[in-house]
């Protein structure tokens, strides 16, 4: 545990990727395979379900520290992180345990799950007493499922590749599914991860998907596209669909569906099973899972849908905008989110919220890795595969064409009415890379500007981690009546915590402290004085929100110090954006 806690401290202390990489390599080079197995699991985002309820942990910590609840609460407010607070308050170890991470997880921590409170009260504090502060904090983060450290899966992949001399792509492939809940990391899993490549490795893959290739944001004025990107003819252009990026893996007579988070999601989308007999073994398709408005079998035939897709290619802007969403049948992401949120899938849900896949790319065909074929070849083959599949559950993501970037920019104006986030530009000769690599060709996401409104800050909450001592998470409101209306009030509609510079955040923090009206735990209500331009990606009706509106990915675009609170936007302005 100590070595892992030291690794955590090293990773936490730096923002440099090289320093993090060095820390990871040092750790993995020295770690026992069983410990390394768990370290890979946690560092690449694996999270076992919470082992001990947070509330109980607080109570036990208060007891152990012999503190009244209010003082524990004040301490937590100052620290901003529960695990860290507890590690600072409970008595520290006189001699600390030398057991490794694996032993801690398997023998001490995992067995706690599901135990009644009395048993936990007996067992937890003695465990705490075996750890120094640093290890204790990390251990508590593991217990509460709140372990997070600024390391990407890609960095873990690079560290393992550096250490073993293996190709990073190979490691990435082996890592896929590693953090799946059904897996328990152990020494042999880790040894497989770092083993030298065997001749029959390909055959051992089963349902393993490929690492996803990810796009980079394109932030250029359209006038500079030609100069930077060349002519549009060198690019494959598609809509950037707003669904779940997924990979369909068909091997050994079975179909596996993986999300971009490398989570196996086949069971949540049983309707896709009908694709299994229609795809040949050794086929892997990258695409977007979207909600399809009409049950596909009831409305359009595969041919019609292909027709729709093809037509969209050549359509001019005017024809495209009106009712296209309706015709094309894609539903807002909010619906998909609703479906993901359900624990059980009722017949009604399957009927009301059916899904289909828009194919982007072909990664494997006839059992062979196609990722090093150029984009246009993969696309052509993808279309052939989809035609042969002949199921309305699988369609190619339509290609968009135009002679100039300006024309594409015009088409892009239709994004919002189509319910898409903008366009994707894929170099025609690009290979399919790994993650955010750029060396084998590049994908750009050319997103539309977000919606924006001027909103008033009404609540502030302390942040976490780096922002633990600052009021950095805000709730924003708009007026429920026009300026001058009597008794109009501010209605909260969004929470946002990103978009400000550290400097601005400090200033806002000071104002929050000065204008506090009431404190509720970590939250303060303030006298409304601050107006921010708030940007968001999507907007939908919502019954759960007081305002009747929910927005996606809200963030602060800028601080409108020039704008008095009375001139902030109204609920009616927000409703206008709904169309």
């Amino acid at each position, binding site marked *: 545990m100590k070595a892992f806690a030291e690794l955590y401290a090293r990773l936490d*202390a730096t923002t440099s990727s090289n320093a993090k990489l060095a820390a990871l390599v040092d750790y993995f080079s020295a770690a026992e395979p069983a410990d390394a197995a768990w370290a890979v699991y946690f560092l690449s985002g694996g999270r076992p379900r919470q082992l001990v309820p947070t509330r109980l942990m607080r109570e036990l910590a208060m007891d152990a520290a012999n503190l009244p609840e209010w003082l524990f609460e004040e301490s937590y407010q100052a*620290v901003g992180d529960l695990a860290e607070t507890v590690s*600072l308050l409970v008595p520290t170890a006189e001699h600390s345990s030398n057991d490794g991470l694996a032993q801690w997880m398997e023998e001490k921590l995992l067995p706690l799950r599901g135990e009644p409170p009395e048993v936990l009260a007996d067992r937890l504090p003695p465990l705490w007493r075996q750890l120094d502060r640093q290890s204790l904090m990390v251990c508590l983060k593991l217990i509460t499922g709140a372990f997070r450290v600024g390391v990407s899966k890609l960095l873990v992949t690079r560290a393992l590749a550096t250490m073993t001399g293996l190709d990073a792509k190979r490691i990435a492939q082996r890592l896929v599914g590693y953090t799946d809940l059904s897996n328990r990391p152990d020494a042999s899993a880790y040894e497989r991860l770092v083993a030298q490549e065997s001749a029959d490795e390909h055959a051992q893959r089963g349902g393993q998907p490929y690492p996803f290739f990810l796009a980079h944001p394109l932030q250029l004025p359209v006038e500079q596209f030609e100069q930077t990107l060349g002519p549009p003819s060198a690019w494959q252009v598609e809509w950037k669909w707003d669904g779940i990026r997924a990979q369909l893996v068909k091997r050994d007579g079975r179909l596996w569906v993986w999300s971009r988070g490398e989570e196996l999601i086949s069971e949540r989308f049983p309707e896709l099973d009908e694709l299994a007999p229609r795809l040949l073994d050794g086929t892997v398709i990258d695409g977007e899972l979207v909600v399809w408005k009409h049950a596909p079998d009831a409305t359009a035939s595969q041919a019609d849908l292909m027709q729709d897709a093809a037509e969209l290619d050549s359509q001019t802007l005017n024809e495209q905008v009106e009712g296209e969403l309706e015709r094309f049948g894609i539903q807002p992401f909010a619906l998909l989110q609703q479906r993901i949120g359900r624990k059980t899938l009722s017949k009604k849900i399957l009927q009301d919220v059916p899904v289909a896949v828009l194919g982007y790319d072909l990664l494997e065909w006839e059992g062979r890795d196609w990722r090093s074929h150029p984009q246009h070849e993969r696309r052509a083959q993808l279309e052939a595969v989809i035609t042969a599949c002949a199921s309305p559950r699988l369609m190619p993501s339509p290609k968009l064409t135009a002679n100039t970037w300006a024309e594409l920019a015009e088409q892009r104006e239709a994004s919002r009415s189509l319910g898409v986030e903008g366009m994707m530009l894929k170099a025609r000769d690009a290979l399919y890379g790994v993650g955010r690599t750029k060396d084998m060709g590049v994908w750009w996401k050319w997103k539309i500007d977000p919606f924006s409104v001027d909103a008033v800050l009404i609540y502030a909450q302390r942040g976490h*981690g780096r922002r*633990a*001592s600052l009021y950095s998470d805000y709730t924003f409101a708009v007026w429920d009546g026009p300026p001058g209306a009597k008794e109009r009030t501010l209605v909260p509609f969004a929470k946002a915590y990103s978009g400000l510079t550290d400097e601005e955040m400090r200033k806002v923090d000071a104002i929050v402290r000065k204008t506090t009206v009431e404190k509720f735990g970590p939250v303060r209500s303030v006298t409304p004085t601050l107006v921010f331009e708030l940007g968001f990606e999507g907007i939908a009706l919502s019954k759960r929100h007081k305002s009747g509106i929910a927005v996606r990915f809200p963030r602060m675009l800028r601080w409108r110090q020039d704008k008095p609170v009375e001139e902030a936007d109204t609920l009616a302005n927000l409703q206008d954006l709904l169309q």
Partner: protein
Amino acid sequence: MDLVIARPEGLYCPPGDFYIDPWRPVDRAVITHAHGDHARWGMKHYLAAAPGEGILRSRIGADMPLQTLPYGERIVHHGVTLSFHPAGHVLGSAQVRLEYEGEVWVASGDYKVEPDGTCAPFEPVRCHTFITESTFGLPIYTWQPQAEIFAGINEWWRANQAQGRASVLFSYAFGKAQRILHGIDDGIGPILVHGAVEPLNRVYREAGIRIPETHYAGDFKKNDPMLREALIVAPPSAGGSTWMRRFGDYSDAFASGWMMLRGTRRRRGVDRGFVLSDHADWPGLLWAIEQTGAERVMVTHGSVAILVRYLREQGLDAQGFTTEYGDEEEADLVKEGASV
């Protein structure tokens, strides 16, 4: 009768007609120590503990109207018996003991209970009413013994040296810097200091405190190989300035009690945070209060509301004093729990 009350000018002793660490110009000021938020310019008459004279004169003015008194020695002014007692905070820091008509009050100024060799160690003084600071008045603040912290600094310095990197340690220029210089292993390599630190080193040396040989960092050219082996002690304000460029590739660290929290460490953006404070930690505050035997406790700068509530729950008569003392150490760090 209250021997000390809060007035707009500062803490005031009505029978003695003088102020303790006032923040506005007054006729008579009793000064606990030379940190800027306690010892201000513009008083007509200053009274301070004798060991603090050098620092006070170097910071306020060589010709300031200053009267000094050795620790423990008493003088009587308007019937109030006054004496200074070591506070263990920085060189010359003192608690002020006031006695009037059988009533004893002690104003602590800033204090630290762990002895550090650079100033007379904190000495508990029995009293009826104790005025305490509360800078680190939350139970999350408990200091490790300083020997462990110095061992950590030495280890960091050696590791940087092995990699050919300079070690830049930020610390407050008066008190903390000298404590570090006194405590670290000067056999590891050359020690360089910023221009703000050296004059204070001189005062400490004159007071007989062992401060190892230091060089003025400004005398070295960029790329001087000596820099790569050196420890450089500089005030936080030097961080990010052009002054830092001369060190090329360096590792930086910050020494402060606030480094206890991961959030503040990260916000500082330094490679290392060493938890070293000139103030009492939570157990230190409680121990000091208990040692005085006081039944009444007045709490000043820091976590006033929290400490007051806690002491009341322990059965003491506690209340807060509003003061304008700040946190001289890391005024630019966002302070925690200082809501009152």
